[in-house]
């Protein structure tokens, strides 16, 4: 209940500032719309079914790019975390690649994969990859030794030590990485879709801009924010279930 008060309070403050800015700024309606105009634009997008189609396209792309990325990152992270000798060679490479924005690779991504569907997928893939890889590798290194003792004692051998013991044992730590990667990848979804995609929220933003429809632009921006928040909350709920099940104390991220 208190939460609801906070949220509506924040919402009202934003609306008031927005309205005042639009009134006092003296800009053309087409360049900076009022909240009302944005609402109308939002309604237009809903009626046409454009918004639903773009959300579906974006979520689909996001799901594919994100899942492919985190699956590979988890498998590689498990193996590289276990075989520390190999990781010692790859770690410097990962550390150099990690801080580079996926957008920096764009010319090469277009060169390798063309324009259209692929750049968005590849950019989401890169954005999600490193947080999950690094979280997995470091979690394997920190695993409670008692799990490995139990595994050896009960005659569990590779690859089952990794799949049956190590992976589930460190899963709460990986989940934190997954959560982090989700946020990062969502930020880059829009950027990825600006490169030649013909659908999606990123395309909607480009399209609105090209048609001087600032009302649609803001509607799209707000949609991206709300969807990102929903995704984040979903993952947080799953994460908390995992912590409870694993008997760990609730953590706040």
């Amino acid at each position: 209940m208190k939460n609801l008060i906070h949220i509506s309070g924040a919402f009202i403050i934003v609306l008031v500032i927005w309205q005042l800015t639009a009134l006092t700024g003296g800009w053309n309606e087409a360049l900076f719309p009022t909240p009302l105009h944005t609402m109308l634009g939002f309604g237009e997008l809903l009626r046409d079914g454009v918004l639903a189609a773009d959300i579906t396209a974006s979520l689909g792309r996001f799901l594919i790019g994100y899942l492919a990325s985190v699956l590979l990152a988890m498998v590689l992270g498990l193996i590289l975390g276990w075989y520390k000798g190999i990781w010692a060679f790859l770690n410097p490479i990962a550390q150099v690649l990690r801080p580079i924005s996926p957008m920096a690779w764009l010319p090469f991504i277009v060169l390798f994969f063309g324009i259209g569907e692929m750049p968005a997928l590849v950019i989401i893939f890169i954005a999600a990859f490193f947080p999950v890889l690094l979280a997995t590798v470091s979690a394997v290194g920190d695993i409670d030794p008692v799990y490995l003792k139990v595994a050896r004692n009960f005659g569990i051998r590779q690859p089952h030590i990794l799949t049956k013991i190590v992976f589930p044992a460190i899963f709460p730590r990986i989940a934190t990485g997954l959560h982090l990667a989700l946020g990062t990848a969502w930020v880059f979804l829009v950027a990825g879709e600006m490169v030649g995609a013909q659908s999606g929220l990123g395309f909607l933003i480009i399209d609105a801009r090209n048609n001087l429809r600032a009302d649609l632009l803001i509607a799209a921006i707000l949609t991206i924010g709300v969807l990102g928040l929903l995704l984040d909350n979903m993952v947080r709920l799953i994460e908390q279930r995992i912590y409870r099940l694993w008997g760990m104390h609730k953590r706040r991220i």
Partner: protein
Amino acid sequence: MSYIEIHDVSRTYRQKDQVFQALSHVDLQIEQGEFICLLGPSGCGKSTLLNILAGFDRVTEGTVSIGGKPITAPTIRNVTIFQNYGLLPWRTVEKNVELGLESLHIPADKRHEIAEHYLKLVGLQDFRHHHPAELSGGMQQRVAIARALAVDPDILFMDEPFAALDALTRMNLQDEISSICRQQHKTIIFVTHDIDESVVLADRIVIMTPNPGHIKAILPVDLHGQRDRTSPDFLHVRDRVFQSFSLKPEDKTEYYI
């Protein structure tokens, strides 16, 4: 030749320039079916000795063998029970008990049957679908005991298994493990720093002291059946343990005269 032979075993750890001697020239023979308590303060090498026997650690010098064979690695024939239980939190109680059975390639229905039997033995059959985090410490350790017994091991190694439990739960579990293990004819090596615990459980108490870790004395406990913690016989054995650690006041006075 005894079932477990520990002959002139030493274990040293090196950390950079420092050498730490955890065990120094330990000799011990253990027969099948014996309940042995390794008793001593921290740093006396009791856990090191247990880890060597369980195959988790190596000797620096000397030899160890079980059933005539040298120990090279952990085996499912000899199961260790840890102080922090070592349960897998993502598995239900039942699935935890079945862990070792999976490695033995026992079919699923047979696994359920065995798990149910041992969960009943430790009184947790109603909790088989719970996760470890939902159970108390004492119940979790019971699950670990059921998991160990489920693979029908020859030896149980127990590394201060009850140290994290409250006193009453601890006493209950001591009585339970004592009767269960004697019924099932297991050989038990039990590490503890609790003198009463060792007197309740052991056939022989191996008293160890630190700097470097070695065996100071081996005390046979001539108490049979259910042990009464308040009986004169019990207190007599307890007294002798105190004497071995030089914890009796009269020892001290003698020392200073």
